[in-house]
């Protein structure tokens, strides 16, 4: 456990026996089946599974975007949702960074980042801007903070979106394949940047991906999901010391970890491919 994690007391996420059936009275698509995960405070927890397996469904349940059909989710021992209240409240203690990005196109990066603390009335607009500037500086985005999201690259936008989430001091950061559709080089830069941001602002990270190397490079642990209906097949701890940088990618231990994960995930990927699964929302 590193220094960043030790500072952290909050953000333990417990997902207990969660199932989700879409349209139970109609087509009844089972997206999640008895999923259980224990995520310690300050952990980078990678959820890896084939496309369309139901990973996003799990993230949406944690975020409070839709109800679960059964099971419960706890944050630091407090119930977010259970059978009685199947839908968790949306709250700034769980911030989501979306797959295709959701920066407000009509606000500059600075205004996007300072938005949360202002609407929550946690900070005055002036204080919020100052804090936003400090965080944007940390992330190397201060020079483009006056630009609109439409004027910057998707990599920059995703970084800014993580900053916009962090300024709200969430207990958990929920990342839904944020680096999907980026080229490998950009992805590698984004990964190092995320780890740097994490060192500076430690927080529990729940990270959904279908990229094996991404999962091993970033995570303390990798949970491997089965194909739909998704359930947890195996949780593999990644035994690589932090801080990790690009040199890790060519090391022998990294390669062995990737192999281990690949062996576990491969059969699921084959099943998903054979079933020709379409992606679930």
């Amino acid at each position, binding site marked *: 456990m590193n220094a960043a994690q030790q500072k952290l007391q909050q953000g333990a996420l417990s997902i207990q026996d969660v199932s989700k059936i879409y349209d139970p009275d109609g087509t009844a698509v089972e997206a999640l089946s008895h999923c259980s995960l224990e995520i310690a405070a300050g952990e980078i927890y990678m959820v890896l599974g084939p496309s369309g397996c139901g990973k996003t469904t799990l993230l949406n349940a944690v975020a409070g*975007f839709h109800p679960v059909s059964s099971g419960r989710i706890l944050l630091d021992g407090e119930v977010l949702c259970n059978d009685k209240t199947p839908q968790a409240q949306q*709250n700034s203690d769980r*911030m989501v960074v979306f797959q295709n*990005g*959701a920066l*407000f196109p009509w*606000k500059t990066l600075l205004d996007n980042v300072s938005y949360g603390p202002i*609407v929550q009335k946690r900070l005055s607009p002036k204080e919020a801007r100052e804090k936003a500037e400090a965080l944007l500086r940390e992330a190397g985005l201060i020079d483009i903070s006056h630009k609109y999201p439409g*004027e910057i690259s998707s990599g920059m936008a995703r970084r800014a979106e993580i900053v916009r989430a962090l300024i709200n001091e969430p207990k958990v950061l929920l990342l839904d394949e944020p680096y999907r559709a980026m080229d490998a080089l950009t992805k590698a830069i984004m990964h190092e940047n995320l780890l740097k941001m994490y060192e500076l602002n430690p927080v529990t990270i729940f990270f959904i991906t279908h990229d094996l190397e991404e999962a091993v490079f970033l995570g303390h642990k990798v949970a491997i999901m089965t194909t739909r209906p998704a359930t947890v097949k195996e949780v593999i701890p990644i035994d690589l010391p932090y801080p990790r940088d690009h040199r890790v990618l060519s090391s022998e231990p990294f390669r062995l970890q990737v192999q281990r994960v690949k062996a576990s995930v491969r059969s699921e990927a084959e099943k998903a491919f054979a079933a020709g699964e379409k992606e679930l929302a």
Partner: protein
Amino acid sequence: MTLKIYLRKHPGIWRGVLSVLTILLGWECYIQGKIWLGYPSQVPVPSAILARWADVIMEGSYWMSWYSSYSRVLAGFAIAMLLGIPFGLLLAVNRTSRALFFPVFEILRPIPPLAWVPASLIFWPTQEMSIIFVIFLGSFYAVVINVLGGAKNVDIRYLRAAQSMGANQWQLFRRVIFPATLPSIFTGAAVGMGITWEVVVAAEMIAVGGRVYGGGLGFFVWNSFVGGSIEQAVIGMLSIGIAGYTASSLLRYAGRRLMPWHTSQA
């Protein structure tokens, strides 16, 4: 020198001028050529039109026509925006109002604005008000339909992001739904503005009988035709084109000012 630099930076301007001049020249050559070959032509040539125009711009009644049409268009358009934007937003965010008002709206919408002219002449106390009413109807539907479509299709990710950050219902509306709908509002405004010019001219031809002053450009065209001056009728037509173009340009300018982020989007 500065003008030269400006034009170099904005090649669209002189290209635009070039295209207009080319059309005028082609028109002139075609008609003059026809006459030269011995075929008579009813169509006036640009040189004659421009010569006549030079006289017309000295007449107060010509500018009065501009003023009349423009003020009618702006009045009808402004009322359409003032009522149409809130109405469209209301239909988008409130299911009950949508169920109540949308069917009525959809039944009235296919009725062409000009079909309202006789009824509105009876219904409204003055001719002026009936014309403005018809103009209002022309743009109202376009504004409402675009605002409704835009506000209903706000990306759910923006709403979820704002809600997670703690936005309440009003903030969600004011800070997310409204700005996200702005581009659609301007689309509706641009379409609506186009319709107002179609409507004002026709309404003036029908409704404004025998008034030289305050008849508007539509009446100017009709009156010139009846008076036998085809050149002047064409001048009226071109004036309407220019008036509509300036109105749309102002709208585009306002759009760029209000949505600096929108031009930068792909």
